[in-house]
């Protein structure tokens, strides 16, 4: 890691001029992508943007705060259906999306209460129970799930003369960019430092004056807010919702993305999102192999590279920076 000399430097998002160039080039590349890429790549990228939001949220919870959660599908479902019902009442999408996040965040606080007493494996089971309970409530309640036909959502109409697929791409790109910036700022602020302190040693953190109750619940609220937003956006992209989109497999998918991308890293979350989506695209002809690939990757990552894809990327960068010296 780099040497940081002042607090101002700590708050900076990008510390080296060359990094600024590379990040700028990457953003420009993403902005120009629809001009030359075929449509299916644009669509895949759109889905990756949506996923990266929720996975960043989960990384805040799992990677930074160290609270294991398997309830992601529940928050996704709550966010998505809140958004769906509100949009059917004709409420404009920014308010709907915000309410989706807030509703999921509220339930996140509820699901976070066990975290005040429970640790590690026990917390994992409590959140797992929450996720599945939410799924079953939606499956069994036609009022909430919109009945057998599912819940239809009015898709957004393209503006500025863009085609629908390009409009979707830019729309979700901007939202994902916004949330990525928010995540970076949360991490480098006092909130992020409190999260990390809780992860490393919660008792020491409490002694240092971190209010455990407040920050643990805040971590749950923020991560569920992100996941709820992902749910709402996903519903908006698909145009319809049904409870079977939010099974336990969905929780596993997000969790796998966090682990494979790399715990406690924003770049890792985005890489994890890309990995999960790309594997599903590549193996779309043989869907049964998707869990096998996920499983094997998890085994390899945890045994050989506990920092995930981001750790590998970081080591490669370090290697080239110091090349030919080691």
């Amino acid at each position, binding site marked *: 890691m780099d040497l940081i000399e002042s607090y101002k430097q700590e708050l900076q998002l990008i510390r080296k001029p060359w990094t600024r160039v590379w990040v700028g080039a990457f953003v420009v590349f993403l902005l120009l992508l629809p001009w030359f890429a075929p449509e299916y790549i644009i669509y895949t990228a759109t889905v990756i943007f949506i996923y990266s939001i929720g996975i960043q949220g989960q990384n805040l919870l799992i990677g930074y705060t160290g609270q294991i959660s398997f309830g992601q599908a529940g928050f996704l479902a709550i966010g998505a259906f809140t958004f769906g019902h509100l949009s059917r009442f004709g409420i404009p999408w920014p308010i709907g999306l915000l309410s989706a996040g807030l509703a999921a965040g509220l339930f996140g606080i509820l699901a976070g209460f066990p975290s005040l007493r429970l640790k590690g494996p026990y917390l994992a089971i409590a959140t797992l*129970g929450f996720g599945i309970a939410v799924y079953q409530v939606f499956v069994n309640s036609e009022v909430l799930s919109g009945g057998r036909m599912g819940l239809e959502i009015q898709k957004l109409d393209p503006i500025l003369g863009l085609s629908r697929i390009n409009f979707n791409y830019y729309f979700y790109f901007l939202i994902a960019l916004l949330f990525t910036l928010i995540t970076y700022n949360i991490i480098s602020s006092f909130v992020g430092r409190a999260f990390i302190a809780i992860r490393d040693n919660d008792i020491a953190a409490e002694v240092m004056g971190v209010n455990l109750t407040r920050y643990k619940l805040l971590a749950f609220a923020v991560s569920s807010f992100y996941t709820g937003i992902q749910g709402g956006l996903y519903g908006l992209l698909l145009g319809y919702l049904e409870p079977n989109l939010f099974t336990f497999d969905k929780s596993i998918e997000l969790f796998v993305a966090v682990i494979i991308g790399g715990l406690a890293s924003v770049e890792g979350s985005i890489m994890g999102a890309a990995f999960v989506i790309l594997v599903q695209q590549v193996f779309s002809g043989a869907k049964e192999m998707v869990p096998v690939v996920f499983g094997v990757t*998890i085994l390899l990552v945890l045994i050989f590279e506990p920092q995930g894809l981001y750790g590998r990327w970081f080591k490669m960068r370090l290697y080239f920076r110091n090349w030919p010296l080691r």
Partner: protein
Amino acid sequence: MTNFWQYVISGLATGATYALVALGLALIYRSSRILHFAHGDITTAGTFVAFTLLGYKLHYMLAFTLALLFGAVLAMIFYFCVLIPAQRREATQLGQIILTLGLGLILQGLVIRYGGTETQSFPFPLSDFKTFQIGGVVISHLSLGTIGIGLLTCLLFYLLVQKTRIGLAMRATSENLPAAQTMGIPTRQILALSWGLAALLGVLAGLFLAPALLLDPFFMLEPFLKGFAAAILGGLNSLPGAIVGGLILGVAESLAGGYVSIAFKNTFAFLVIILVLLVRPEGLLGKEFKERV
């Protein structure tokens, strides 16, 4: 009143299978502090092996024994080839739990690949449709067999853990690993044995669940999660707790399904998990949490 006893009896039959699943989970948690997320998938794989062998016209006893052995060997291979290398590289406890999740995903994919996703009926020597009738309460041969085998297995397991030298070694290993190593107990083999036994109990539960639930690659997901709930209800650290928890959960669920609402019968188990964890995290029979600062 007849209704009530009917619910209790059918609850006991499901509860016996939950107890078997929970016993395996508790055994592994007690000895290696790992939540075994692949338990359900190992069970599914073992049951599919039995199904395939029965397709080759093997005798029931032989096919079931081979399936049980397959599950046990699979779990031991996982312990030796994945968990031990991970522990050598100082994987965290969370990391080891995620490793079992990875194994579960792999097995799930392979079962779908080679077993197919269609729902199949599982041939079984006991029938679900032939019934006994005792004073108005109807019980099928299968349910009676499940209760019988469940209780018998629990008894045998109790004898193994409490009355034999291997059981003593298992208890010592779970009580204090370094001390057990110092006393010359081959802890690694004992732990591998625990994993194998747990998988064996799981596959046994799977074999009795398959004829009632019909066989498909996801048939174990719900019983597995219920087993989790049962283990937590009884206390993850306690083996008798797992049995008691399983039976209580089975009966409570059946009563809730009968008297409250059949649609929310399954949600009930997860509410139980959250409530138990909030009120008494150590479970009914578990010891209290102690934490050193």
